[in-house]
């Protein structure tokens, strides 16, 4: 009993540290790749190839003064970054990182908890993440923040519908909500669900980018109109918590996409956990690539696209898949 608790605690620690390191190095990857795509070289001074840049950034942010403007709602202002940050981390509780393995004679499962509604759990916790942004916008007492928060609410509610519908095709084919079983049925590259649901995948990635407020759907923090949107008034570690939350959300979306469409940790030769990391990194690269390629949408275009294009297409995909599964 005690051993089981200890193993679980160690696993939680490993996953949290891995995710936070992943977030830190996602910023490095983003700056490096974005730099190359814009014909620059990106960070290169701190350490070899600029590899220590995330560490330098983190240290800098910790030592910055934590400014709290005078007309904020203090409690909500302090809570908002945490609310933005925690749900993003929670979704990693049900993501399978690796196959089961033996270590020092103990049987260790490759995920923290195998819920039989794993995918619903992820949608439940990520749907709470919007409160962080909304409350930050509301409590800051600044017009830019408020507008950023309002935009975020409308955007995330609109795209959550398409986001949820885009994975129903996968669930219909897989006939399960458990993340472990989803990986199990996708053994071998020909069994990846992406081949059966290419359209569903396009819907998923589009809605997911909008859900995580990334370019070209980053209206809540559009710097050309809203300074920095909902986190305009934040500084120091509180500011960086929003950023860690955003990157953790991107990682979560990439991990879920990997598990749902690309066979999770399945792959030949290399250890499973490495395959998982490779697939997630490829996903993150697409995120950055899209950011460097597309200009930001206008707000009414964003809403129109969400409700009049993405939502009907997601419904259509669900219906066609259901009919196909029935036949």
């Amino acid at each position, binding site marked *: 009993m005690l051993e089981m608790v200890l193993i679980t605690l160690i696993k939680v620690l490993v996953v949290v540290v891995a995710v936070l390191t992943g977030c830190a190095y996602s910023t490095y990857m983003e700056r490096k790749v974005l730099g190359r795509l814009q014909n620059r070289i990106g960070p290169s001074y701190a350490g070899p190839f600029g590899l220590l840049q995330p560490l330098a950034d983190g240290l800098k942010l910790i030592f910055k003064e934590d400014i709290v403007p005078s007309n904020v709602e203090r409690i909500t202002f302090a809570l908002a970054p945490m609310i933005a940050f925690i749900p993003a981390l929670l979704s990693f509780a049900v993501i399978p990182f690796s196959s089961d393995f033996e270590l020092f004679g103990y049987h260790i499962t490759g995920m923290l908890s195998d819920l039989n*509604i794993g995918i*619903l759990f992820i949608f*439940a916790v990520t749907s709470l993440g919007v409160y962080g942004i909304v*409350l930050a916008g509301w*409590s800051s007492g600044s017009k830019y923040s*408020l507008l950023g928060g309002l935009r975020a609410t409308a955007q995330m509610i609109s795209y*959550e519908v398409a986001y949820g519908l885009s994975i129903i095709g996968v669930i219909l084919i897989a006939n399960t909500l458990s993340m472990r079983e989803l990986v199990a049925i996708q053994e071998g590259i020909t069994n990846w669900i992406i081949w059966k649901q290419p359209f569903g995948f396009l819907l998923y990635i589009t809605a997911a980018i909008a859900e995580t407020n990334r370019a070209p759907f980053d209206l809540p923090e559009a710097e050309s109109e809203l300074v920095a949107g909902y986190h305009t008034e934040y500084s120091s570690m509180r500011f960086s918590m929003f950023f860690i939350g955003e990157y953790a959300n991107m990682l979560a979306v990439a991990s879920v996409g990997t598990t749902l469409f690309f066979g999770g940790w399945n792959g030949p030769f290399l250890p499973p956990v490495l395959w998982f990391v490779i697939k997630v990194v490829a996903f993150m690269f697409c995120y950055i690539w899209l950011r460097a390629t597309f200009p930001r949408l206008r707000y009414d275009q964003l809403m129109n696209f969400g409700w009049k294009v993405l939502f009907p297409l997601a419904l259509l995909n669900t219906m066609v898949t259901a009919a196909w599964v029935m036949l």
Partner: protein
Amino acid sequence: MTLDMFIFVFSAIVAVFGATMMISQRNPVAAVLYLIVSLVAQAVLYVQLGSVFMGAVLIIVYAGAILVLFVFVIMMLNLRGKEDLGDNSPPISRATKYIISMLMVAEFVFIVHGSVFSGPGGGMLEAETVAGFGSVEGIAKLLFTRYLYPFELTSILLLSAVVGAVVMAKRREIHEQSDSGSVSIDNDSNEGVK
């Protein structure tokens, strides 16, 4: 105290605490936050009863969607708890709200006492303790066989409500002679931010 009992008591206390704080808050945003706390605790109770799906749906639908809309409306109107919250209402309407809430409490006590605690197996509990009850498969089977017509009727009701809401919103827009359907925020609603 077993772990199960501890989780139950803890989440029950949190749920009731959240609900109480929610109705006693002046600040509407704080009230919504307490409601979310209460909902999460209720979801834990569902999970503990073996109805994992209901727990997840409670969070997705209520905490993740409906309450976000509440917060959205509060932010649009920029309520900050200074508004008239019924203190100046006539005594008769104040008395009415207490009477109605008392009646509701009495009704709940009556229902819970009559159904859950009566009988050897505990009333309602024994009827539905079938295999897979509360799981996704169990709910889906009941929903699409025994309760198919109520389920479909509910969805038609919701659809007509949506259409009604759109019609009413459109009608007001014509009266105000505004030109587009996009959301606009007028300057008055942001006065409190300055």
